[in-house]
């Protein structure tokens, strides 16, 4: 009897840890700037880009899971912001939500404008993607997606202006 109880506790703990891991929405991001041209990316810029791109994905995941734009913190602008708003509002309208978990992003800076006012990133993103209709999972996959990203500097942060998935770079 005691053994059964211990087994139940172990299984419960294992499931809880599993759930915690699955709910992890903090993205892992690595940024390589060696290919950036014609301007080289300064170290401080590199740090700011890494920080803001990571936040952007964390906020995007939160917005699409909760169907709320409040979590975006101004990290999206222009087309990227319009698209995200469109997706959140149509998800809400259809009773859908989507979940991005266990995110890992390998990002290469491929173009940095001569005056430093725009940077193009190529992100090979890996994540577990799940689409839910209410609480029912209708699609789940481990996705590897290539994103072309345009970011521009704002007053105190870099903002995502374009976030477009492509079949390949």
């Amino acid at each position: 009897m005691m053994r059964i109880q211990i087994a139940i506790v172990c299984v419960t703990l294992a499931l809880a840890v599993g759930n915690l891991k699955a709910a992890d929405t903090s993205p892992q991001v690595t940024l390589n700037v060696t290919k950036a041209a014609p301007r080289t990316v300064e170290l401080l810029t590199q740090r700011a880009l890494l920080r803001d791109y990571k936040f952007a994905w964390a906020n995007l995941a939160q917005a699409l899971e909760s169907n709320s734009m409040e979590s975006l913190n101004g990290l999206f602008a222009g087309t990227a912001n319009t698209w995200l708003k469109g997706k959140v509002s149509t998800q809400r309208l259809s009773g859908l939500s989507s979940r991005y978990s266990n995110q890992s992003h390998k990002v290469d800076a491929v173009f940095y404008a001569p005056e430093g006012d725009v940077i193009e990133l190529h992100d090979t993103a890996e994540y577990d993607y799940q689409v839910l209709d209410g609480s029912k999972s209708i699609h789940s996959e481990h996705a590897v997606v290539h994103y072309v990203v345009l970011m521009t500097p704002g007053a105190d942060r870099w903002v995502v202006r374009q976030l477009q998935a492509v079949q390949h770079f």
Partner: protein
Amino acid sequence: MSSSINTACRSPKVSLCWIGAVLLSLAAVSMAQDIELRVPSGAVAGQPASISTTGGGSATFYLEGPSIALKRDVQLGQDIQLSAREIEGAGRYVATICASNCSSSVFFVAAGKPSTLTFLVHPSRAPVGQPDMISGVAFPFDEFENLIFTPETVQFQISSKESKLASHSVETQNGVAWFRTSSGKSAGAVQVAASLNDVQARRVVQQVASDPCRLQIKAQRTPKGVEVQTDPVRDCAGNPVPDGTIVTFTAKNGDQISTVDAPIKQDVARARITAKGTIVISAASGVVMGNEIRVGGQ
């Protein structure tokens, strides 16, 4: 269903009954798994597309794209029509269909034809005769603001009122084309244009005179002091230096040194120096020194 099978299988021919039930279940599972989605392979943003399905009966169709999420009831075996509006955003789409179970398929929508050019040009004011002074970056987008990733040739052209100054033809790489060029020799507005097929974007750069090339001063003693002024101040290409550029006049009288800053107004900077006795006056603007003149005492 399982209770009815249990009841039915209490008959003497138990094994046959169970085999039948298993076969029926397998058939049902196989029917449920048979739903197949045939997604478009070359979909273009803003152009209608269709997804074909197999099987029969009603089902729920879901589409998750970059800017859209939708859910609608469909009939299996019929094509699902996607309107132009539903696939305006280029990117990755997940189409899912659910009947007794769900199956999904992924497809990509590519950007359409170039419709706009985002064109960034720097600086807005450029000194003349400077190497690599003017730069421009162009991103082609389609009418739905999708970045066009396939190579396109962008024509950059720099022209003044009188003539075409420079032209560069650049193929986009990773969806961007850029150029860098020297500024011209004459002050004035120049137009910088980027064009791709019949799409064009224009910006204006004001070319201004560079630093003064040489300073020549003259002075005259008057009852109120020494009136000193420059000749018209120009850069090395002969362009008049903009009004407001500061010229510093320095007067030395033995150990005493006094300075006066005067802005250029209509090409000339003027100042009055109130020193007595013989003085030596010089002028400077930026890194350029002018001549020295000696003015005797009254």
